[in-house]
């Protein structure tokens, strides 16, 4: 049976892993290569590295960080943040990434999804959507530029368009839940997951094993992402997977 994936996410700024709450108040959480390997050995099914560097100077270190992280990693490895062209994507793949995650650049230039999918395959093109709940019931809007800019676009419509343009997976982050540990947004995840036929990775709000069980069952997520909950050792990956397996969620465990 196809298992539900637990994906460890590393937010990287200038070569270091950082983590904030609702996209703000960043603090240092360690070296990306070391953390990626530790997560992989602990049972992570996949690693996502998101470069959140704001300056060009800090971005230069990204490829070296990707290379160093990929070297000893033999599970799927996704890199996102600041990928604006086919050339940017190519250099990240050359450095050892298996997939790229596109966010703001895909909204600004949706053709980029198709270009990457045609050159590297759909499985290598992930579209990341940062969504925020609006006042109208069941309404979520897409935000870009690290959650700073509203696009006026509906999250469901954008997910469908991304799929049609060749995206292989959707990485869906609830801005309202990011870093809060209050649980995933199951309503948002279910809405997107039932609107597209490609896998949806739920992100934002992981705080306990029960939250993961909820988003896999009620949210119909194919995978779920966790960052702070793992870095600071609050939840050991092995314990998390064991608990989920015991609750009847198909897991790659033992691995």
């Amino acid at each position, binding site marked *: 049976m196809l298992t539900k*994936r637990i994906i460890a996410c590393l937010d990287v700024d200038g070569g270091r892993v950082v983590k904030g709450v609702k996209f703000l108040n960043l603090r240092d959480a360690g070296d990306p290569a070391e953390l990626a390997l530790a997560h992989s050995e602990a049972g992570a099914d996949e690693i996502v590295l998101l470069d959140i560097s704001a300056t060009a100077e800090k971005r230069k270190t990204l490829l070296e960080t990707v290379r160093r992280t990929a070297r000893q990693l033999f*599970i*799927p490895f996704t890199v996102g943040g600041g990928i604006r062209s086919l050339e940017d994507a190519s250099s990240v793949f050359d450095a050892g990434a298996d997939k790229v995650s596109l966010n703001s650049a895909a909204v600004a230039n949706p053709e980029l999804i198709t270009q990457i999918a045609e050159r590297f395959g759909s499985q290598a093109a992930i579209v990341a959507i940062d969504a925020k709940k609006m006042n109208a019931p069941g309404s979520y809007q897409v935000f870009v530029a690290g959650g700073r800019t509203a696009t006026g676009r509906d999250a469901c419509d954008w997910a469908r368009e991304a799929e049609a343009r060749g995206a292989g997976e959707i990485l869906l982050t609830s801005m309202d839940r990011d870093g809060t540990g209050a649980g995933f947004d199951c309503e948002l995840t279910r809405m997107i997951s039932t609107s597209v036929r490609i896998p949806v990775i739920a992100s934002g709000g992981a705080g306990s094993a029960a939250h993961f069980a909820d988003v896999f069952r009620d949210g119909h997520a194919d995978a779920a992402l966790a960052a702070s909950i793992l870095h600071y050792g609050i939840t050991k990956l092995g314990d998390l997977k064991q608990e989920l397996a015991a609750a009847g969620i198909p897991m790659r465990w033992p691995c």
Partner: protein
Amino acid sequence: MSIAIVDYGAGNLTSVNKAFDCLGHEAFITADAETVHRADRIVVPGVGHFTATASIDSTGLRAAIESAIQRGTPVLGICLGMQWMFASSAEASGLKGLGIFSGECEHFPSTVKSPHVGWNQLCCTQISKLFAKLEPGPFVYFTHSYRAPIDEYTVARCEYGGEFSAAVERDNVFGVQFHPEKSGTAGIKLLEAFCNLSC
């Protein structure tokens, strides 16, 4: 020992190369038929659309691989590379595969999400040279929309909207639908077994 990773323009080959590096073997990415023919091991990787395999024909790589197989060189197809070892694929019905394994690759049924992405468990059904040192029923990483049928040479099956061939083995020709280079310890052990084959 030289390991040729065949580059026919189907995706990113860095990860496959890196896995052999980690095992201490000298692997190289090449599109040159003569270099492929001379190698001690041949890996046919690839992701993406079956039409990409057309360039294996147009560049003389097919003849080089066929002749190497005749000579007994171990050949491993990964993902699209494995599907190419079958007779054909519904994804590009005009193209001919290598035909070492029989049947046509087909799309997953509409009852399941496609592509099949993630870790799934294998059911090893026959004695296999590649799986000999692995735990039974390993979890491995897949990402594909088309699947190969069960053949008499199928050594591992997988279930997703019905059973399909996850690994095939016939003399010195091997194919795996999953990505051993992305399947953690199990995948690395499998690649090591391929490097250590005595056939």
